[in-house]
Protein backbone atom coordinates (compact mmCIF):
# COMPACT_ATOMS: atom_id res chain seq x y z
CA UNK A 1 0.00 0.00 0.00
CA UNK A 2 2.90 2.34 0.75
CA UNK A 3 3.98 2.16 -2.89
CA UNK A 4 0.72 3.64 -4.05
CA UNK A 5 1.10 6.52 -1.62
CA UNK A 6 4.58 7.20 -2.93
CA UNK A 7 3.41 7.15 -6.55
CA UNK A 8 0.53 9.50 -5.79
CA UNK A 9 2.90 11.82 -3.96
CA UNK A 10 5.35 11.85 -6.91
CA UNK A 11 2.61 12.49 -9.45
CA UNK A 12 1.20 15.21 -7.23
CA UNK A 13 4.57 16.91 -6.91
CA UNK A 14 5.13 16.73 -10.68
CA UNK A 15 1.76 18.30 -11.37
CA UNK A 16 2.34 20.98 -8.75
CA UNK A 17 5.80 21.84 -10.07
CA UNK A 18 4.77 21.92 -13.71
CA UNK A 19 1.55 23.84 -13.15
CA UNK A 20 3.24 26.54 -11.15
CA UNK A 21 6.09 27.15 -13.58
CA UNK A 22 7.02 30.73 -12.86
CA UNK A 23 7.03 32.62 -16.17
CA UNK A 24 8.66 35.66 -14.65
CA UNK A 25 11.88 33.81 -13.87
CA UNK A 26 14.28 32.34 -16.41
CA UNK A 27 14.57 28.57 -16.81
CA UNK A 28 17.38 26.26 -15.67
CA UNK A 29 20.46 26.15 -17.83
CA UNK A 30 22.66 23.18 -18.61
CA UNK A 31 26.35 24.03 -18.14
CA UNK A 32 25.76 27.76 -17.76
CA UNK A 33 29.45 28.52 -17.92
CA UNK A 34 29.21 28.17 -21.68
CA UNK A 35 26.03 30.24 -21.80
CA UNK A 36 27.19 33.26 -19.88
CA UNK A 37 29.78 35.51 -21.43
CA UNK A 38 33.02 35.94 -19.53
CA UNK A 39 33.43 39.38 -20.99
CA UNK A 40 31.10 42.11 -19.77
CA UNK A 41 27.98 42.29 -21.86
CA UNK A 42 26.47 45.60 -22.97
CA UNK A 43 24.14 47.11 -20.34
CA UNK A 44 25.11 44.39 -17.84
CA UNK A 45 25.72 45.02 -14.18
CA UNK A 46 29.40 45.16 -13.31
CA UNK A 47 30.66 46.26 -9.94
CA UNK A 48 34.04 47.46 -11.25
CA UNK A 49 32.50 50.33 -13.15
CA UNK A 50 31.09 53.60 -11.93
CA UNK A 51 27.47 53.23 -10.90
CA UNK A 52 27.73 49.44 -11.08
CA UNK A 53 26.82 49.28 -14.77
CA UNK A 54 28.81 48.28 -17.79
CA UNK A 55 27.43 51.00 -20.07
CA UNK A 56 29.54 54.11 -19.52
CA UNK A 57 29.82 57.35 -21.42
CA UNK A 58 32.98 57.62 -23.51
CA UNK A 59 35.72 59.90 -22.22
CA UNK A 60 35.14 63.60 -22.80
CA UNK A 61 36.07 64.74 -26.27
CA UNK A 62 35.80 61.26 -27.80
CA UNK A 63 34.53 61.22 -31.36
CA UNK A 64 33.21 58.41 -33.55
CA UNK A 65 35.21 57.06 -36.42
CA UNK A 66 34.16 59.01 -39.49
CA UNK A 67 32.54 61.68 -37.34
CA UNK A 68 32.04 65.02 -39.02
CA UNK A 69 31.49 67.99 -36.74
CA UNK A 70 28.25 69.87 -37.28
CA UNK A 71 28.96 73.56 -37.06
CA UNK A 72 25.51 75.03 -36.62
CA UNK A 73 24.47 75.45 -33.03
CA UNK A 74 21.14 74.45 -31.53
CA UNK A 75 19.48 77.86 -31.46
CA UNK A 76 17.18 80.04 -33.51
CA UNK A 77 20.20 81.77 -35.02
CA UNK A 78 21.77 78.40 -35.85
CA UNK A 79 18.53 77.32 -37.50
CA UNK A 80 18.41 80.43 -39.67
CA UNK A 81 22.05 79.99 -40.67
CA UNK A 82 21.57 76.31 -41.54
CA UNK A 83 18.44 77.17 -43.48
CA UNK A 84 20.33 79.71 -45.59
CA UNK A 85 23.75 78.13 -45.96
CA UNK A 86 23.75 74.39 -45.33
CA UNK A 87 23.77 72.31 -48.50
CA UNK A 88 23.24 68.58 -48.90
CA UNK A 89 26.38 66.53 -49.64
CA UNK A 90 24.34 63.85 -51.44
CA UNK A 91 25.37 63.08 -55.01
CA UNK A 92 22.90 62.39 -57.82
CA UNK A 93 22.91 58.64 -57.08
CA UNK A 94 21.59 59.18 -53.57
CA UNK A 95 18.81 61.53 -54.60
CA UNK A 96 15.26 60.14 -54.76
CA UNK A 97 16.45 56.97 -53.13
CA UNK A 98 14.19 54.20 -51.87
CA UNK A 99 16.19 54.29 -48.66
CA UNK A 100 15.03 57.81 -47.86
CA UNK A 101 11.39 56.75 -48.22
CA UNK A 102 11.97 53.67 -46.06
CA UNK A 103 13.59 55.73 -43.31
CA UNK A 104 10.90 58.41 -43.51
CA UNK A 105 8.26 55.75 -43.01
CA UNK A 106 10.02 54.46 -39.91
CA UNK A 107 10.95 57.71 -38.20
CA UNK A 108 8.69 60.50 -39.50
CA UNK A 109 5.43 59.05 -40.77
CA UNK A 110 3.84 58.52 -37.34
CA UNK A 111 3.47 62.28 -36.91
CA UNK A 112 4.06 63.91 -40.31
CA UNK A 113 1.93 61.45 -42.29
CA UNK A 114 2.85 59.33 -45.29
CA UNK A 115 2.50 62.31 -47.63
CA UNK A 116 3.95 64.91 -45.29
CA UNK A 117 0.62 66.65 -44.74
CA UNK A 118 1.02 66.58 -40.96
CA UNK A 119 -1.74 64.04 -40.47
CA UNK A 120 0.07 60.97 -39.19
CA UNK A 121 -1.43 58.27 -37.04
CA UNK A 122 -0.41 59.99 -33.80
CA UNK A 123 -2.00 63.25 -34.94
CA UNK A 124 -5.19 61.47 -35.99
CA UNK A 125 -5.42 59.88 -32.58
CA UNK A 126 -4.77 63.29 -30.98
CA UNK A 127 -1.65 62.14 -29.17
CA UNK A 128 0.45 64.77 -30.89
CA UNK A 129 -1.04 68.02 -32.09
CA UNK A 130 0.10 70.93 -34.14
CA UNK A 131 2.19 69.01 -36.67
CA UNK A 132 2.31 71.35 -39.70
CA UNK A 133 2.01 70.27 -43.29
CA UNK A 134 5.32 70.60 -45.17
CA UNK A 135 3.42 72.73 -47.68
CA UNK A 136 2.78 75.45 -45.07
CA UNK A 137 6.36 75.76 -43.93
CA UNK A 138 9.31 77.40 -45.58
CA UNK A 139 11.91 74.68 -45.37
CA UNK A 140 15.18 74.02 -47.14
CA UNK A 141 17.31 70.88 -47.09
CA UNK A 142 19.60 72.64 -44.64
CA UNK A 143 16.79 73.51 -42.24
CA UNK A 144 15.34 69.98 -42.45
CA UNK A 145 18.72 68.48 -41.61
CA UNK A 146 19.16 70.95 -38.76
CA UNK A 147 15.77 70.04 -37.25
CA UNK A 148 16.41 66.30 -37.65
CA UNK A 149 19.68 66.75 -35.81
CA UNK A 150 18.54 68.95 -32.93
CA UNK A 151 14.75 68.74 -32.95
CA UNK A 152 12.50 71.78 -32.88
CA UNK A 153 9.80 72.69 -30.36
CA UNK A 154 7.82 69.49 -29.75
CA UNK A 155 9.94 67.39 -32.10
CA UNK A 156 12.91 65.67 -30.53
CA UNK A 157 16.36 65.05 -31.93
CA UNK A 158 16.72 62.01 -34.17
CA UNK A 159 20.48 62.13 -34.38
CA UNK A 160 20.99 58.96 -32.38
CA UNK A 161 18.59 56.93 -34.51
CA UNK A 162 19.76 58.20 -37.90
CA UNK A 163 23.34 58.61 -39.08
CA UNK A 164 24.42 61.85 -40.78
CA UNK A 165 24.05 60.26 -44.22
CA UNK A 166 20.63 58.84 -43.37
CA UNK A 167 19.44 62.24 -42.16
CA UNK A 168 20.41 63.73 -45.52
CA UNK A 169 18.50 60.96 -47.30
CA UNK A 170 15.41 61.76 -45.23
CA UNK A 171 15.82 65.52 -45.84
CA UNK A 172 15.92 64.79 -49.56
CA UNK A 173 12.73 62.72 -49.34
CA UNK A 174 10.97 65.40 -47.27
CA UNK A 175 11.65 67.97 -50.01
CA UNK A 176 10.30 65.52 -52.58
CA UNK A 177 7.10 65.13 -50.52
CA UNK A 178 6.81 68.91 -50.14
CA UNK A 179 7.01 69.34 -53.90
CA UNK A 180 4.19 66.83 -54.33
CA UNK A 181 1.80 68.42 -51.81
Amino acid at each position, binding site marked *: *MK*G*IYKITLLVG*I*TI*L*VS*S*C*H*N*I*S*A*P*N*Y*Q*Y*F*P*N*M*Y*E*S*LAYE*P*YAEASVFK*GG*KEAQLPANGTINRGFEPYEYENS*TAGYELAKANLKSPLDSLDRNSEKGKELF*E*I*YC*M*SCHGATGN*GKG*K*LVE*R*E*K*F*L*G*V*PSYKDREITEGSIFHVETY*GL*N*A*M*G*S*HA*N*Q*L*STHERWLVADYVLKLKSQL
Partner: protein
Amino acid sequence: MEKVGNHNSISRKLFLSLGLTLIFSLTSFAQDAAAPAAPEAAPVATQGGDPVKGKELFNANCAACHKLDGKSTGPELRGVSEKHDKAWLYKWIHNSSDLIKSGDPVAVKLFADHNKAVMTSFPQLSTGDIDNIIAYTSEPKATAPAPTATAAVPGTGGESGAISNNIILGALALVMGMLVVMLYLVNNVLRKVAKANGIDVTPKEPRVSLWKAFARNQFLVLVASIFLLLASGYFVYAYLMQVGVDQNYEPIQPIHYSHKIHAGDNEINCKYCHSASRVSKTAGIPSLNVCMNCHKNISEVAETTATPEYSKAFYDEQIQKLYNAVGWDKTTQTYTGKTQPVKWVRIHNLPDFVYFNHSQHVTVAGIECQTCHGPVQEYEIMKQYSKLTMGWCIDCHRKTDVKMEGNEYYTKIHEELSKKYGVEKLTAAQMGGLECGKCHY
Protein backbone atom coordinates in the same frame (compact mmCIF):
# COMPACT_ATOMS: atom_id res chain seq x y z
CA MET B 1 23.41 20.52 -13.77
CA GLU B 2 24.17 23.78 -12.13
CA LYS B 3 21.78 26.41 -11.10
CA VAL B 4 22.49 29.96 -12.11
CA GLY B 5 21.75 32.96 -10.03
CA ASN B 6 18.24 34.30 -9.87
CA HIS B 7 16.75 30.97 -10.94
CA ASN B 8 13.88 29.35 -9.18
CA SER B 9 14.35 26.37 -6.91
CA ILE B 10 11.99 23.44 -6.74
CA SER B 11 11.45 23.71 -3.02
CA ARG B 12 10.61 27.37 -3.29
CA LYS B 13 8.17 26.58 -6.05
CA LEU B 14 6.57 23.88 -3.93
CA PHE B 15 6.14 26.14 -0.95
CA LEU B 16 4.87 28.89 -3.16
CA SER B 17 2.29 26.66 -4.79
CA LEU B 18 1.22 25.28 -1.42
CA GLY B 19 0.87 28.76 -0.04
CA LEU B 20 -1.09 29.81 -3.11
CA THR B 21 -3.53 26.97 -2.70
CA LEU B 22 -4.03 27.85 0.94
CA ILE B 23 -4.70 31.49 0.42
CA PHE B 24 -6.68 30.79 -2.71
CA SER B 25 -10.06 31.42 -1.23
CA LEU B 26 -8.81 34.33 0.80
CA THR B 27 -7.69 36.42 -2.14
CA SER B 28 -8.88 39.90 -1.57
CA PHE B 29 -9.19 42.55 -4.12
CA ALA B 30 -7.77 45.91 -3.49
CA GLN B 31 -9.05 48.73 -5.54
CA ASP B 32 -7.76 52.18 -5.84
CA ALA B 33 -10.41 54.73 -5.44
CA ALA B 34 -9.89 57.35 -8.10
CA ALA B 35 -10.96 60.67 -6.77
CA PRO B 36 -13.13 62.38 -9.33
CA ALA B 37 -11.43 65.40 -10.79
CA ALA B 38 -12.83 68.51 -9.24
CA PRO B 39 -14.48 70.64 -11.87
CA GLU B 40 -12.44 73.74 -12.47
CA ALA B 41 -14.00 77.11 -12.16
CA ALA B 42 -15.23 78.18 -15.55
CA PRO B 43 -13.09 80.91 -17.06
CA VAL B 44 -14.73 83.89 -18.66
CA ALA B 45 -17.55 83.33 -21.07
CA THR B 46 -16.77 83.29 -24.77
CA GLN B 47 -16.80 86.68 -26.39
CA GLY B 48 -18.02 86.43 -29.94
CA GLY B 49 -15.98 83.60 -31.40
CA ASP B 50 -16.62 80.07 -32.58
CA PRO B 51 -14.96 77.58 -30.23
CA VAL B 52 -15.35 74.72 -32.75
CA LYS B 53 -13.42 76.55 -35.44
CA GLY B 54 -11.08 77.71 -32.70
CA LYS B 55 -10.29 74.12 -31.74
CA GLU B 56 -9.33 73.31 -35.32
CA LEU B 57 -7.07 76.35 -35.52
CA PHE B 58 -5.65 75.68 -32.08
CA ASN B 59 -4.75 72.07 -32.92
CA ALA B 60 -3.19 73.07 -36.24
CA ASN B 61 -1.23 76.11 -35.09
CA CYS B 62 -0.81 76.33 -31.34
CA ALA B 63 -0.87 72.78 -30.00
CA ALA B 64 2.71 72.04 -31.03
CA CYS B 65 3.88 74.26 -28.18
CA HIS B 66 0.84 75.04 -26.03
CA LYS B 67 -1.57 72.89 -24.12
CA LEU B 68 -4.88 74.04 -22.71
CA ASP B 69 -3.93 72.88 -19.23
CA GLY B 70 -0.40 72.50 -18.05
CA LYS B 71 2.84 73.91 -19.34
CA SER B 72 4.42 72.67 -22.54
CA THR B 73 7.07 74.50 -24.58
CA GLY B 74 4.92 77.58 -24.04
CA PRO B 75 2.53 78.47 -21.21
CA GLU B 76 -0.90 76.92 -20.83
CA LEU B 77 -3.58 78.75 -22.75
CA ARG B 78 -6.85 78.06 -20.92
CA GLY B 79 -8.32 81.36 -19.83
CA VAL B 80 -5.56 83.34 -21.55
CA SER B 81 -8.03 86.15 -22.34
CA GLU B 82 -8.27 86.80 -18.61
CA LYS B 83 -4.54 87.40 -18.32
CA HIS B 84 -4.09 89.67 -21.34
CA ASP B 85 -6.41 91.96 -23.25
CA LYS B 86 -7.36 91.13 -26.79
CA ALA B 87 -5.54 93.93 -28.59
CA TRP B 88 -2.32 92.88 -26.87
CA LEU B 89 -2.90 89.22 -27.82
CA TYR B 90 -3.42 90.14 -31.51
CA LYS B 91 -0.11 91.97 -31.51
CA TRP B 92 1.68 89.16 -29.67
CA ILE B 93 0.38 86.42 -31.96
CA HIS B 94 1.04 88.34 -35.16
CA ASN B 95 4.63 89.09 -34.22
CA SER B 96 5.84 88.52 -30.70
CA SER B 97 9.46 89.44 -31.43
CA ASP B 98 8.48 92.95 -32.50
CA LEU B 99 6.42 93.38 -29.36
CA ILE B 100 9.35 92.33 -27.18
CA LYS B 101 11.73 94.63 -29.08
CA SER B 102 9.34 97.55 -28.64
CA GLY B 103 9.92 97.19 -24.90
CA ASP B 104 6.36 96.27 -23.89
CA PRO B 105 6.86 95.37 -20.21
CA VAL B 106 4.33 92.48 -20.22
CA ALA B 107 5.89 90.95 -23.34
CA VAL B 108 9.45 91.28 -22.02
CA LYS B 109 8.49 89.63 -18.75
CA LEU B 110 6.65 86.80 -20.50
CA PHE B 111 9.63 86.18 -22.76
CA ALA B 112 12.02 86.06 -19.83
CA ASP B 113 9.72 83.78 -17.83
CA HIS B 114 9.65 81.09 -20.50
CA ASN B 115 13.32 80.36 -21.09
CA LYS B 116 13.45 83.05 -23.81
CA ALA B 117 11.86 80.68 -26.31
CA VAL B 118 10.78 82.63 -29.38
CA MET B 119 7.18 82.07 -30.41
CA THR B 120 6.59 81.59 -34.13
CA SER B 121 4.81 84.58 -35.71
CA PHE B 122 1.40 83.93 -37.16
CA PRO B 123 0.66 86.90 -39.45
CA GLN B 124 -1.67 84.64 -41.47
CA LEU B 125 -4.17 84.43 -38.58
CA SER B 126 -6.84 87.12 -38.89
CA THR B 127 -8.29 88.82 -35.79
CA GLY B 128 -11.41 86.69 -36.40
CA ASP B 129 -9.31 83.53 -36.31
CA ILE B 130 -7.68 84.66 -33.09
CA ASP B 131 -11.12 85.41 -31.61
CA ASN B 132 -12.13 81.84 -32.43
CA ILE B 133 -9.02 80.45 -30.76
CA ILE B 134 -9.64 82.62 -27.69
CA ALA B 135 -13.22 81.38 -27.60
CA TYR B 136 -11.90 77.81 -27.60
CA THR B 137 -9.36 78.51 -24.86
CA SER B 138 -12.06 80.20 -22.76
CA GLU B 139 -14.20 77.10 -22.65
CA PRO B 140 -14.43 75.66 -19.12
CA LYS B 141 -12.50 72.49 -18.51
CA ALA B 142 -14.62 69.42 -19.11
CA THR B 143 -15.51 67.72 -15.86
CA ALA B 144 -14.46 64.14 -15.34
CA PRO B 145 -16.42 62.16 -17.95
CA ALA B 146 -18.52 59.13 -17.16
CA PRO B 147 -15.98 56.47 -18.26
CA THR B 148 -13.59 57.35 -15.42
CA ALA B 149 -16.31 56.94 -12.86
CA THR B 150 -17.27 53.52 -14.15
CA ALA B 151 -13.63 52.47 -14.44
CA ALA B 152 -13.14 53.11 -10.73
CA VAL B 153 -16.17 51.05 -9.75
CA PRO B 154 -14.99 47.65 -8.56
CA GLY B 155 -16.16 44.50 -10.25
CA THR B 156 -16.53 45.76 -13.79
CA GLY B 157 -15.09 44.11 -16.88
CA GLY B 158 -12.45 41.45 -16.45
CA GLU B 159 -12.18 41.70 -12.68
CA SER B 160 -15.79 40.70 -12.11
CA GLY B 161 -15.13 37.33 -13.78
CA ALA B 162 -12.15 36.69 -11.51
CA ILE B 163 -14.11 37.56 -8.37
CA SER B 164 -17.15 35.44 -9.17
CA ASN B 165 -14.90 32.51 -10.17
CA ASN B 166 -13.14 32.70 -6.83
CA ILE B 167 -16.41 32.90 -4.95
CA ILE B 168 -17.79 29.87 -6.80
CA LEU B 169 -14.62 27.87 -6.20
CA GLY B 170 -14.55 28.84 -2.54
CA ALA B 171 -18.20 27.82 -2.12
CA LEU B 172 -17.52 24.50 -3.82
CA ALA B 173 -14.56 23.84 -1.53
CA LEU B 174 -16.73 24.65 1.48
CA VAL B 175 -19.48 22.28 0.31
CA MET B 176 -16.93 19.51 -0.27
CA GLY B 177 -15.46 20.03 3.20
CA MET B 178 -18.91 19.89 4.77
CA LEU B 179 -19.69 16.68 2.87
CA VAL B 180 -16.51 15.03 4.17
CA VAL B 181 -17.32 16.05 7.74
CA MET B 182 -20.90 14.82 7.37
CA LEU B 183 -19.81 11.46 5.96
CA TYR B 184 -17.42 11.00 8.84
CA LEU B 185 -20.14 11.84 11.37
CA VAL B 186 -22.71 9.56 9.69
CA ASN B 187 -20.17 6.72 9.66
CA ASN B 188 -19.50 7.23 13.35
CA VAL B 189 -23.18 7.27 14.23
CA LEU B 190 -23.85 4.10 12.20
CA ARG B 191 -21.00 2.28 13.93
CA LYS B 192 -22.32 3.30 17.30
CA VAL B 193 -25.81 2.14 16.33
CA ALA B 194 -24.41 -1.19 15.12
CA LYS B 195 -22.45 -1.63 18.33
CA ALA B 196 -25.47 -0.82 20.44
CA ASN B 197 -27.47 -3.41 18.50
CA GLY B 198 -24.75 -5.99 19.01
CA ILE B 199 -23.80 -6.36 15.31
CA ASP B 200 -20.15 -7.11 14.65
CA VAL B 201 -18.89 -4.70 11.99
CA THR B 202 -15.27 -5.90 11.82
CA PRO B 203 -14.47 -7.74 8.56
CA LYS B 204 -14.77 -11.51 9.00
CA GLU B 205 -11.80 -12.98 7.12
CA PRO B 206 -8.84 -11.04 5.70
CA ARG B 207 -9.17 -11.05 1.89
CA VAL B 208 -6.14 -11.09 -0.39
CA SER B 209 -5.34 -7.45 -0.96
CA LEU B 210 -5.50 -6.03 -4.50
CA TRP B 211 -1.85 -5.13 -4.40
CA LYS B 212 -0.73 -8.70 -3.50
CA ALA B 213 -2.95 -10.18 -6.19
CA PHE B 214 -1.35 -7.83 -8.67
CA ALA B 215 2.16 -8.75 -7.52
CA ARG B 216 1.45 -12.44 -8.01
CA ASN B 217 0.38 -11.98 -11.64
CA GLN B 218 3.76 -11.74 -13.40
CA PHE B 219 2.32 -10.82 -16.80
CA LEU B 220 0.51 -7.82 -15.36
CA VAL B 221 3.65 -6.75 -13.53
CA LEU B 222 5.70 -6.96 -16.75
CA VAL B 223 3.19 -4.93 -18.79
CA ALA B 224 2.82 -2.39 -16.02
CA SER B 225 6.55 -1.91 -15.58
CA ILE B 226 7.09 -1.50 -19.35
CA PHE B 227 4.34 1.08 -19.41
CA LEU B 228 5.75 2.89 -16.42
CA LEU B 229 9.24 2.94 -17.93
CA LEU B 230 8.00 4.32 -21.23
CA ALA B 231 5.85 6.93 -19.53
CA SER B 232 8.61 8.09 -17.23
CA GLY B 233 11.03 8.14 -20.17
CA TYR B 234 8.63 10.37 -22.03
CA PHE B 235 8.32 12.81 -19.13
CA VAL B 236 12.04 12.84 -18.38
CA TYR B 237 12.82 13.51 -22.05
CA ALA B 238 10.25 16.31 -22.19
CA TYR B 239 11.69 17.82 -19.03
CA LEU B 240 15.28 17.66 -20.22
CA MET B 241 14.43 19.14 -23.61
CA GLN B 242 13.04 22.31 -22.07
CA VAL B 243 16.11 22.95 -19.91
CA GLY B 244 17.63 26.23 -21.06
CA VAL B 245 14.60 27.14 -23.20
CA ASP B 246 12.97 30.36 -22.08
CA GLN B 247 9.90 30.37 -24.28
CA ASN B 248 7.10 32.50 -22.78
CA TYR B 249 9.53 34.06 -20.31
CA GLU B 250 7.67 37.16 -19.12
CA PRO B 251 9.63 39.05 -16.46
CA ILE B 252 8.27 42.04 -14.58
CA GLN B 253 9.98 45.15 -15.91
CA PRO B 254 10.81 48.20 -13.79
CA ILE B 255 8.56 50.36 -15.99
CA HIS B 256 5.36 48.81 -17.31
CA TYR B 257 5.92 49.52 -21.01
CA SER B 258 3.04 48.39 -23.20
CA HIS B 259 4.04 47.35 -26.74
CA LYS B 260 0.31 47.10 -27.44
CA ILE B 261 -0.25 50.82 -26.95
CA HIS B 262 2.87 51.94 -28.80
CA ALA B 263 3.35 49.49 -31.65
CA GLY B 264 -0.26 48.29 -31.84
CA ASP B 265 -2.71 51.12 -31.24
CA ASN B 266 -0.41 53.95 -32.30
CA GLU B 267 1.32 51.97 -35.07
CA ILE B 268 4.78 53.25 -34.25
CA ASN B 269 7.33 51.33 -36.28
CA CYS B 270 9.39 48.81 -34.27
CA LYS B 271 12.55 50.31 -35.71
CA TYR B 272 11.68 53.80 -34.47
CA CYS B 273 12.80 52.76 -30.99
CA HIS B 274 14.88 49.67 -31.80
CA SER B 275 16.80 51.57 -34.45
CA ALA B 276 19.99 49.59 -33.85
CA SER B 277 18.35 46.47 -35.30
CA ARG B 278 18.76 48.03 -38.76
CA VAL B 279 22.48 48.54 -38.52
CA SER B 280 23.95 46.45 -35.75
CA LYS B 281 24.28 43.01 -34.26
CA THR B 282 21.95 43.79 -31.37
CA ALA B 283 18.47 45.30 -31.58
CA GLY B 284 19.37 47.42 -28.59
CA ILE B 285 17.38 48.67 -25.65
CA PRO B 286 16.17 52.11 -26.68
CA SER B 287 17.86 54.80 -24.66
CA LEU B 288 15.46 56.98 -22.71
CA ASN B 289 15.99 60.03 -24.92
CA VAL B 290 14.06 58.10 -27.58
CA CYS B 291 11.13 57.82 -25.16
CA MET B 292 11.41 61.54 -24.47
CA ASN B 293 11.10 62.34 -28.19
CA CYS B 294 7.38 61.81 -27.68
CA HIS B 295 6.89 61.81 -23.92
CA LYS B 296 8.28 65.31 -23.48
CA ASN B 297 4.86 66.24 -24.88
CA ILE B 298 2.77 63.32 -23.69
CA SER B 299 2.90 63.45 -19.91
CA GLU B 300 -0.31 61.52 -19.33
CA VAL B 301 -2.31 58.94 -21.22
CA ALA B 302 -5.73 59.61 -22.68
CA GLU B 303 -8.83 58.43 -20.85
CA THR B 304 -9.47 56.00 -23.68
CA THR B 305 -6.10 54.30 -23.19
CA ALA B 306 -7.04 52.97 -19.77
CA THR B 307 -8.35 49.42 -19.62
CA PRO B 308 -10.24 47.67 -16.82
CA GLU B 309 -6.97 45.96 -15.92
CA TYR B 310 -4.70 49.01 -16.01
CA SER B 311 -6.12 52.35 -14.96
CA LYS B 312 -5.13 55.76 -16.27
CA ALA B 313 -3.49 56.52 -12.95
CA PHE B 314 -1.36 53.39 -13.34
CA TYR B 315 -0.17 54.37 -16.82
CA ASP B 316 0.48 57.97 -15.74
CA GLU B 317 2.64 56.61 -12.94
CA GLN B 318 4.70 54.70 -15.50
CA ILE B 319 5.33 57.91 -17.45
CA GLN B 320 6.31 59.58 -14.20
CA LYS B 321 8.84 56.77 -13.63
CA LEU B 322 10.35 57.63 -17.02
CA TYR B 323 10.53 61.32 -16.01
CA ASN B 324 12.26 60.37 -12.75
CA ALA B 325 14.78 58.26 -14.64
CA VAL B 326 15.72 60.94 -17.17
CA GLY B 327 15.36 63.77 -14.67
CA TRP B 328 12.62 65.69 -16.47
CA ASP B 329 10.68 68.21 -14.45
CA LYS B 330 7.16 68.30 -15.87
CA THR B 331 6.19 71.58 -14.22
CA THR B 332 9.15 73.65 -15.41
CA GLN B 333 9.66 71.66 -18.63
CA THR B 334 13.40 71.35 -18.02
CA TYR B 335 15.90 68.62 -17.30
CA THR B 336 17.10 68.63 -13.72
CA GLY B 337 20.26 66.67 -14.48
CA LYS B 338 19.46 64.09 -11.80
CA THR B 339 19.20 60.81 -13.68
CA GLN B 340 18.98 57.22 -12.60
CA PRO B 341 19.39 54.14 -14.79
CA VAL B 342 16.41 51.88 -15.47
CA LYS B 343 17.16 48.22 -14.73
CA TRP B 344 15.38 46.57 -17.67
CA VAL B 345 15.25 42.79 -17.48
CA ARG B 346 16.66 41.16 -20.59
CA ILE B 347 14.24 38.66 -22.13
CA HIS B 348 15.85 37.34 -25.31
CA ASN B 349 19.26 36.03 -24.41
CA LEU B 350 21.14 33.67 -26.70
CA PRO B 351 23.93 31.58 -25.19
CA ASP B 352 27.38 33.09 -25.48
CA PHE B 353 28.46 30.41 -27.97
CA VAL B 354 25.99 31.51 -30.64
CA TYR B 355 26.48 34.42 -32.99
CA PHE B 356 23.34 36.18 -34.14
CA ASN B 357 23.19 39.41 -36.08
CA HIS B 358 20.03 41.51 -36.23
CA SER B 359 20.99 43.72 -39.18
CA GLN B 360 21.69 40.62 -41.29
CA HIS B 361 18.14 39.43 -40.74
CA VAL B 362 16.28 42.75 -40.55
CA THR B 363 18.01 44.83 -43.23
CA VAL B 364 19.55 42.29 -45.61
CA ALA B 365 16.97 39.52 -45.46
CA GLY B 366 14.06 41.91 -44.85
CA ILE B 367 12.45 39.61 -42.29
CA GLU B 368 9.58 41.08 -40.29
CA CYS B 369 10.30 41.48 -36.58
CA GLN B 370 7.14 39.48 -35.84
CA THR B 371 8.54 36.36 -37.53
CA CYS B 372 10.76 35.70 -34.53
CA HIS B 373 9.28 37.94 -31.84
CA GLY B 374 5.62 37.12 -32.41
CA PRO B 375 2.69 39.54 -32.42
CA VAL B 376 4.49 42.03 -30.16
CA GLN B 377 2.00 44.74 -31.14
CA GLU B 378 -0.61 42.80 -29.18
CA TYR B 379 1.50 42.24 -26.06
CA GLU B 380 0.64 44.34 -23.04
CA ILE B 381 3.60 42.67 -21.32
CA MET B 382 6.54 41.63 -23.46
CA LYS B 383 7.51 37.97 -23.50
CA GLN B 384 9.68 35.58 -25.47
CA TYR B 385 7.60 34.19 -28.30
CA SER B 386 10.00 31.74 -29.95
CA LYS B 387 12.04 28.94 -28.47
CA LEU B 388 15.33 30.34 -29.77
CA THR B 389 16.76 26.82 -29.94
CA MET B 390 19.12 25.63 -32.66
CA GLY B 391 16.43 23.41 -34.16
CA TRP B 392 14.20 26.45 -34.44
CA CYS B 393 16.91 28.46 -36.26
CA ILE B 394 17.72 25.61 -38.64
CA ASP B 395 14.08 24.96 -39.41
CA CYS B 396 13.64 28.54 -40.60
CA HIS B 397 16.92 28.48 -42.56
CA ARG B 398 15.70 25.37 -44.40
CA LYS B 399 12.34 26.88 -45.31
CA THR B 400 13.16 30.51 -46.06
CA ASP B 401 14.19 31.66 -49.50
CA VAL B 402 16.99 34.17 -49.55
CA LYS B 403 15.92 37.64 -50.71
CA MET B 404 18.00 38.17 -53.85
CA GLU B 405 16.23 41.17 -55.39
CA GLY B 406 18.17 44.37 -55.29
CA ASN B 407 21.18 42.75 -53.70
CA GLU B 408 24.16 42.65 -56.04
CA TYR B 409 26.19 40.84 -53.45
CA TYR B 410 24.28 37.65 -54.16
CA THR B 411 24.05 37.81 -57.98
CA LYS B 412 27.06 35.67 -58.82
CA ILE B 413 26.81 33.12 -56.05
CA HIS B 414 23.10 32.78 -56.70
CA GLU B 415 23.73 31.81 -60.33
CA GLU B 416 26.37 29.24 -59.44
CA LEU B 417 24.48 27.68 -56.57
CA SER B 418 21.24 27.57 -58.59
CA LYS B 419 23.11 25.60 -61.25
CA LYS B 420 24.62 23.31 -58.63
CA TYR B 421 21.34 22.47 -56.91
CA GLY B 422 19.21 22.81 -60.03
CA VAL B 423 16.70 25.11 -58.34
CA GLU B 424 15.29 28.53 -59.12
CA LYS B 425 15.13 29.88 -55.56
CA LEU B 426 17.74 29.26 -52.90
CA THR B 427 16.99 28.74 -49.25
CA ALA B 428 19.23 30.09 -46.53
CA ALA B 429 20.37 26.51 -45.90
CA GLN B 430 21.54 26.11 -49.50
CA MET B 431 23.52 29.34 -49.18
CA GLY B 432 25.43 27.76 -46.31
CA GLY B 433 23.06 28.68 -43.52
CA LEU B 434 23.52 25.28 -41.87
CA GLU B 435 27.30 25.35 -41.62
CA CYS B 436 28.43 25.16 -37.99
CA GLY B 437 30.95 27.95 -38.35
CA LYS B 438 28.30 30.43 -39.52
CA CYS B 439 26.91 30.75 -36.01
CA HIS B 440 29.39 28.96 -33.73
CA TYR B 441 32.93 30.23 -33.66
